[in-house]
């Protein structure tokens, strides 16, 4: 019985994990076409990626857009999370509904909505349009993460600082901010990955002038599949896994700071 359960679990976990592992293996193939198992291994497709101007341009654009999204969404989201907890109930519910709604509204609806409006202001095909739209999608992750770290905050620490003569701003800067910093950093990492991996909005907003990495991969997948995309995929998986691992670690550490 136990053995049966263990066998089933192993099979299910293989289903979950193997496809991504497979992409990693294909990326080291030496074959010119997609075949499995690879006849020989090599770094050919990584060299192809590093030697292709359009792939590199798309990579830099994605990194730059994601970095800008981190700045915009972390700043706006952190300020909002601080204010949100102290709003009157009715207003708080309405504001939270708007802020978290990008998690529920289907991606295509957001994508064509922003495409419809942004095209009138020349924001299609420009990195700025991508930054603005991606920031709206990233904000829910920042607000939930910062709000969670607020919920675990011991109010006596702030009261103590106030009673010892600190100004409200001084209390915030010297007591509150250091305590919620892990939550802010986790939110920033989520924001980065949200933008870096985003495709549906980019499909409509990229145009010709602002082709992001996922958009470049999409174009490739629709026409010709060569293993360059396996190399790019493997690199992005490693990057996201590292960032998410960092976020996970920060979250754990933040939780430990809050539990007395």
């Amino acid at each position, binding site marked *: 019985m136990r053995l049966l*359960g263990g066998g*089933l*679990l192993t099979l*299910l*976990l293989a*289903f*979950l994990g193997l*496809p*991504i592992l497979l*992409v990693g293996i294909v990326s080291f193939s030496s074959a010119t*076409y*997609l075949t*499995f198992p690879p006849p020989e291994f090599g770094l050919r497709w990584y060299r192809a990626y590093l030697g292709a101007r359009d792939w590199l341009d798309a990579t830099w654009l994605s990194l730059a857009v994601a970095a800008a999204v981190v700045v915009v969404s972390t700043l*706006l989201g952190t*300020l*909002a999370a*601080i*204010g*949100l*907890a*102290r709003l009157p109930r009715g*207003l708080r519910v309405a*504001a939270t509904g*708007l802020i*978290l*709604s990008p998690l*529920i*509204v*289907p*991606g*295509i*609806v*957001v994508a*064509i*909505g922003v495409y*419809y*409006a942004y095209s009138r202001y020349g924001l299609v095909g420009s990195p700025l349009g991508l930054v603005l*739209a991606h*920031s*709206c999608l990233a*904000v*829910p992750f920042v607000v*939930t*993460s910062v709000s969670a770290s607020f919920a675990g*905050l011991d*109010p006596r620490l*702030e*009261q103590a600082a106030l*009673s010892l003569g600190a100004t*409200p701003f001084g209390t*915030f800067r010297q007591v509150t901010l250091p305590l919620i910093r892990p939550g802010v950093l986790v939110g920033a990492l*989520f924001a980065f990955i949200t933008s870096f*991996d985003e*495709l*549906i909005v980019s499909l409509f907003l990229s145009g010709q002038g602002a082709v992001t990495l996922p958009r470049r*991969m*999409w174009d490739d*997948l629709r026409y010709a599949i060569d293993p360059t995309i396996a190399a790019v*995929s493997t690199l992005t998986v490693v990057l*996201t896994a590292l960032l998410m691992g960092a976020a996970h670690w920060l979250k754990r550490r933040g939780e430990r700071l809050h539990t007395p």
Partner: protein
Amino acid sequence: MSEAVAPALLAAPRAPGLNWRRAVPLLLVAPLLAFMLALYAAPVLAMLSRSLLEPAPTLAHYIELAGDEVFLKVFTNTLSTTVTVTLGTLLLGYPIALGMARARRLLPLILVIVLLPFWTSVLVRSYAWMVLLGRHGLVNEVLLALGLLDRPMRLLNTPLATQIAMVHILLPYMILPIANALRQIDPSLARAAAGLGAGPFGVFRQVTLPLSMPGVMAGVLLVFVLSLGFYITPALVGGPRDMTLSMLIAQRVEQLDWAYAATLSAVLLATALAIIALFQRVFGVGTAFRMSAR
């Protein structure tokens, strides 16, 4: 000193922490609200309004949908894919969640295997299935090598490919809420049931399963609503004739048929909201989407 501090603390308002003036919280939230209203909510609403205002205020676009064969076929296909994928993730996800709840030493490993796909972009995971299911993909090669096939089978660009890839992509959204619910079950309950004579299956059916239902419902809601809007995966691995609502919307935008695209968007959004409202009313799962913050 402490006597001097105490009255000040007692006089402090009920709100924890700083003594904020009334306007400060609003001023902090206002920039984000203005940003999102201008750059996200207003654009989406303006687009949706095209469904009601073209050419003059009218409900005609919605009424026409009832007799629109393309729409009805695509809508039925989207709903049936969503139901299949939800059931598939439940069937495969529950045992994994159970394994996670019972694992001791292997838990970190299982957690990495569950979270790695969770952190990988939908595009990369769809690509993985293109590699697996293609004409010269792993699945065909293995079946050929085993002699089960004599020529490659068409797997990619079929409805089955969409369903398999979507189950794979959405599986973590089912596993994590269920594992969370299972972790919160007091282990002494299962021991008590066993002590009172229940067999392993009886304990599972009468104790573990009912107590994990909140997690199951949260997972079902998440997967259902997320798969309703799927676009990338069906477009890449699905068949050309098995459109989802999202694909039809994108196609109509490319044809600049904004009224039709807006009407379909409103239907898609309303369906998602109706499902969420239903689950909230009937099962009381409202917080599922906060958990979806990965």
